[in-house]
Every structure is written in C-alpha cells, then in structure tokens.
C-alpha cells in the first residue's frame, strides 16, 4: 500500500469507528505503542475534523503485560502509557498489524487494570491472519493472507519518514 491508499483506508476506518460507536461522546481511542499510537492519533484527528469533537485519546505500552516476559532474554524497552478515564466508555484499541493476537490480549489485560469500559473494539490497519488466540478485529483496513515466513512492514511518516505497507514473502 502506498501513502494515498493508506490515507483512504484510514478515512474509511475513521467513519466506521464513529458508526460502530454511534457517535463520539463515549468514544476513547487508544493506540498500542508504537505505530498503533501514530495511527490512532491520525484516526482521532480525522474523527475530530469530521465530527467537530475532542475524542479522548490514550497511549498504551503493553510490554509489561507480554506473555513472553518470563523467558530469559533481552528486556524490551517500556514506552509511555497514559490513559484517560475508561469506565463506561467505548474504547477503540488501535494497532498497525494484527497477527497472533497476543499483543491485543496483553492490551486487554492492561486496560482491565485501568477501568471497566462498556465495550472494547479492535481496529487494525492490516489483519494478516495467523491467529494463535481467539481474537478478532472489528474494524479492519486491509486483510492479507500470509504465512509464518512472511513479513508485514508498516511504516508511518512520524517514525519512519514515510507511509507505506509492504508484504515481504519469505521462504
């Protein structure tokens, strides 16, 4: 996907979010570190522009909730977590790629420590299949079928200098 394709996708996803949440009052958009945060910020801007709203926004770092921390090895760097009030809200968790589902599981656990949303919806730019847990995305940019040897690279302007999605077939 190139920059324009991504922009079109995000625009469509933004209006889907508002539709599913039936408005913006109870809406909270949370991005998963790191690229999820950038995408979530863009979605928030698109929604605020379209709806003249100030949608609540949060950043979530799931490192401390990962299920592979018990393995001895290099410690991942822990990023920033700041969340607004979650009780009774409709929370949209945003990430760039949905693959095994483990990141989302960690995100759900972490949100539960912060409050009790009314509903949580998952929004991802790319769903690449390959789930290892029973997790599904509610709002999807593009679905791609991939194998374990393949790689999906999402680049965002804020971190990588350009917007792009590339699927690199391995093996």
């Amino acid at each position, binding site marked *: 996907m190139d920059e324009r394709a991504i922009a079109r996708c995000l625009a469509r996803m933004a209006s889907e979010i508002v539709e599913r949440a039936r408005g913006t009052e109870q809406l909270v958009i949370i991005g998963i570190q790191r690229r999820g945060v950038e995408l979530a910020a863009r979605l928030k801007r698109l929604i605020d522009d379209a709806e003249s709203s100030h949608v609540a926004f949060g950043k979530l770092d799931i490192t401390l*909730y990962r299920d592979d*921390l018990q393995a001895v090895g290099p410690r991942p760097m822990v990023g920033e977590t700041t969340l607004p009030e979650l009780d009774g809200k409709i929370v949209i968790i945003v990430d760039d790629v949905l693959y095994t589902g483990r990141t989302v599981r960690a995100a759900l*656990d972490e949100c539960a420590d912060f409050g009790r949303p009314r509903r949580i919806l998952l929004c991802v730019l790319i769903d690449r299949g390959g789930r290892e847990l029973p997790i599904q995305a509610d709002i999807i940019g593009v679905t791609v079928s991939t194998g374990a040897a393949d790689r999906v690279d999402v680049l965002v302007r804020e971190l990588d200098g350009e917007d792009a999605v590339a699927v690199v077939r391995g093996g």
Partner: protein
Amino acid sequence: MPTPLGKDLTALEYLSADQIRLILDTAEPFKEVSERQIKKVPALRGKTIVNLFFEASTRTRISFEFAEKRLSADTVNVASTGSSVSKGETLVDTARNLEAMHIDMVVIRHHASGSAEFLGKRIRSSVINAGDGKHEHPTQGLLDILTLRDKFGKIEGLKVAICGDLLHSRVGRSNIHGLLKLGAEVAVCGPASLLPRDVESLGVTVIPHIEDAIQWADALNILRLQLERMTAGYIPSLREYNRVFGLTAARLDQAPKDLVIMHPGPMNRGVEIDSEVADGPHSVILPQVTNGVAVRMAVLYLLAGGAPDWAQGGGSE
C-alpha cells in the same frame, strides 16, 4: 547499545554511563505504574524474590517490597542481625538454602563491605545490593541521580556537593561513582575526620566548609550523621556538628541560586539538616522516596531479563 547489566547489581562503580542511563530511562514508565489505581503490572509474575536484610532498615526494605509487589513478584523477607559467625550460619549457607527453594533474586543488605559481590559470585540467583557495609548502595545512588535529572533535565555539568560523613557512607560512594560517570562535577564537604583517605583520587574536589559548598553547588546531598561517630571520636559532639556543618535555614539563605536539597533519609533533624530546610521548598526528599520505588522496579525488571531489545517496529504480533 549498553552491554547487558549481567546477573547482579552490586555497585555503580562497575556500571558504564550507558548502563546507568538505561536504568534511569527504564524507571520512567515505572513511575507511571505507581500512579495508577491498580498499582500492579504482571511483568515479574511468578518470580520469587527474597529480601535478605542483615541490617535493620525500614525504608529501603519497604521500597524494595513495593517495587517487587507492583511487578507481581512474590516476596519473602528474611531479617537477621549479627554476623554470620555469631548466628552460626554463614552468609553463603543462608543464601544457598534459599536458593535450594528455587528463588529468582536476592536483595541483600549486609554490614560487610563486599558482601553483595561475595554472594553474587556464589549463587545463581540475581543479587541486588541494598547496601553493603560502607561500600555502595547503588539503588539509592540511582534514585538520587534520577531525582536530579527530573529537576535539572540533565546530569552533565551539574555541580553536586555531597555533605557529611563520607567516610562511612555507601550512599556517598554510589553517588560519587554514578554522578561522575554521567558527567557531573562532584565535591565532598565535611569534617576532615570524616572524609576518606585519598578521596580526591575518585575524581571529586574537597570543599572544607559547607558555606562554600552552598555557594558552589547546584544541588546538595546531605548525608545522615550516625550518632555512633561521636562515641568513636570522629567528631566531638552533635551540637558542634550542627553549628559548624549543619544545613540550617540561615546558611541556605546565602545560596546564590535555587539550591536543590537531597537527603537519603532517615534524617537527624537538627543535626545535619534543620527541619525548616527538610520541609522547605528546596527539598526533594519526598520525590526521592517516590523515585526510589520506580528505580528499584526498573532494576528488578532489567535484571530479570538482560539488555533491552532496542529493535522496535517491524509489526507487532
């Protein structure tokens, strides 16, 4: 990329500047965890940590306990006073017995300098030095430096004066090593009878009078004066110590800038520091305590694994 911290944290003297910065940076997100409603993350779930305290200590032990529990680790406190010889069981045997119960980490405070390193070489569990004799108290040094970084934004070029009984102070030593590695200018200030031999060789300047330290420094770290020093003859009396070396409000008023005042605690109010100063606007003594938990969480988190994975991105799972 800093080399991995290794199995143990026994001394700041053994860390590189990068490694120290790694710990401080890792402490930042942990500050936030302590501000949540649910002050717990599952990062160290299932790990068993033993707090082996051979010296009475409330605040350090509690700080470590909070750090451990907020990381979801299981904690066991073992308190013991007296030397190995008098107790009849050596330090190594105590630790090996614990290790036979499959623990992951030991936090040790002991009256013998070198005891943390001694233990670290003999057991497989990670060892964290919570104060060994007069040698070092690395997590205290780290939290002091983090507090300074919070206040000033950086450590490089900062002028820090450590005041008091340097001779017997492990906090002093850790601060000296950590601050110098990060590029601060460090001075020590106190009665000559309480300054260690050849202390300048560590890279610090000696400022004999606290008034001059106040003129020079950006921050003062006031060390606790232990009452035993008087009986041992190092200083004639506490009253004289306060009169000549104490950080009084009157002395602090002479400061040309907004001095930051630190103290590792517990304080002897009216001896090394007056209440007015300790409770005043320049004091960061309470933020030090808050940072203590975050720093200790960072240390536990890092030692339970290895070095951080700097490679980010490429798609999450």
